[in-house]
């Protein structure tokens, strides 16, 4: 809110010189003003509204820390950078293996049910393209964690346990394996079965995604060899991202 004039226009004349109250109000106005050169903290009881030509904040250390709202038609213009996130963020995205959800293509060795893809205990494997919308571009994929369960009780630990891989593919389908590995050997057949409860296996990746140049796939093979049994259910792969430092197109 503006200060009022001390006096109306043309009221300073002749003997009607400034009196104490004039100076008191002038002094008070200076106390309540905002010092453009010296800075300082003003404690506002209402908003300051600036229209007209707007404002330019030219300091490199300018901060607006209370949050910002745009009225409809207002814009936040980010120049040639992206809105930044500090500290950088993490996120996880689940790639479900349910056939109807994400085009899991089965070989004869695999089938699907409402809970995932089901293995048949042979040595064939499966590629699963990761839908592009689940790849966050230009950030670090820390790991991929596979969730599965062993479908039936086993007489012994399978000779070959399930293996998983994370692969990138360029525009000409040249594949590069980023990481691969097999489930560690359990202590017993019962440990492997685990009452049919969910189990996980994680691959450490540490790779920066690039959806301009690559697509990404998951590969895996079911258990096989002696003691191997059909019926393992592969549910999903969870991609863990970190280093998300800005809001560029994901």
């Amino acid at each position, binding site marked *: 809110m503006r200060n009022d004039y001390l006096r109306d226009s043309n009221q300073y004349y002749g003997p009607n010189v400034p009196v104490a109250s004039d100076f008191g109000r002038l002094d008070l106005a200076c106390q309540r003003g905002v010092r453009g050169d010296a800075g300082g903290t003003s404690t506002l009881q209402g908003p300051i509204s600036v229209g007209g030509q707007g404002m330019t904040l030219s300091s490199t250390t300018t901060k607006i820390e209370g949050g910002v709202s745009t009225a409809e038609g207002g814009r936040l213009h980010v120049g040639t950078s992206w809105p930044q996130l500090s500290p950088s963020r993490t996120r996880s995205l689940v790639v479900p293996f349910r056939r109807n959800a994400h085009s899991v293509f089965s070989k004869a060795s695999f089938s699907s049910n409402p809970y995932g893809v089901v293995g048949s205990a042979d040595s064939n494997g499966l590629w699963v393209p990761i839908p592009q919308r689940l790849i966050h571009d230009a950030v670090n994929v820390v790991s991929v964690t596979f969730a599965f369960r062993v479908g039936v009780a086993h007489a012994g630990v399978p000779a070959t346990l399930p293996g998983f891989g994370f692969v990138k593919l360029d525009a000409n*389908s040249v594949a590069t394996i980023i990481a691969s590995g097999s489930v560690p050997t359990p202590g017993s057949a019962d440990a492997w079965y685990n009452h049919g409860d969910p189990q996980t296996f994680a691959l450490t990746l540490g790779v920066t995604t690039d959806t301009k*140049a690559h697509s990404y796939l998951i590969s*895996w*093979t079911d258990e096989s060899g002696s003691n191997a049994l059909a019926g393992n259910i592969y549910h999903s792969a969870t991609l863990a991202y970190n280093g998300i430092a800005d809001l560029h197109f994901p």
Partner: protein
Amino acid sequence: MGYAPVRILWVNGLPVLASEMDALDGETVDLINFDLGGTWTPSAPVVWASASGYTGPVFNVLGAVALTSSGGVVRTPSASGKRIVFGDGDYYELDAGHPGITFNRLDSFVDGAAAINPTLGSSTTGLAEIAVPIGVGFSKVLRPHHGATWTQVTVNFKVTNAHSSGAPATLPKVRVVQVDATGAKTPLKTVASGADINGWLSVPTPASGSAWFNSGNPQSLVYTFDAGVLLDTSRYVYVLEVVEESGTNATGGTAWESAVGVMTAISDTRAPQ
């Protein structure tokens, strides 16, 4: 924060000292003039805080705020719950020179291809691109950037057979169509830019079967849209359609690898998917 009082109590009859008048005059020069604007050089931050009990905004800027130095930020305190809130229809805008103005995206044809069969995750054996019989087509839903202008799609492929008898009579052709919610297709390239009346663009006729084979090395066909396509994924799905070679000397076996779309004129950060 303003100035300390020049005088604690102003009383009529006491003369105003020159130093007091000088102080008041100097203070008015320093104070920000919001009506006329101007340039100030603060030696300490100008901080706008809220008085106790006041929860409304401390600043309403009805025009624009420009942060003109590269280090200037609009920062929400960590874990404060503060937000940057956009009014209806508002987004972050990108500068004309912003790297995000153009956007390329690779759509692999393995993503949607036929059954493929790797060995245990330490090998890429069995990885397969799309391959279709002679004269047969396939389609691939692409994922362009909503709101952008689509200028071209480059289709990558390899010819896997030698074609020693000659180039195929009919070479592969591609087109991109937009498909609305009812399934109606509209090709996005016309005769004016080199397509046929249905929007198809054929691979240019090579000089020989050997040239067509190209030793199995990667080849590409650039499908350039007429005048750029304004992408609207709220109304359309965009589909690439490909038809394999056919006719005399056709052997099939083309390995269709990927499509790389080029999108431009992205002016803001609205949801790209």
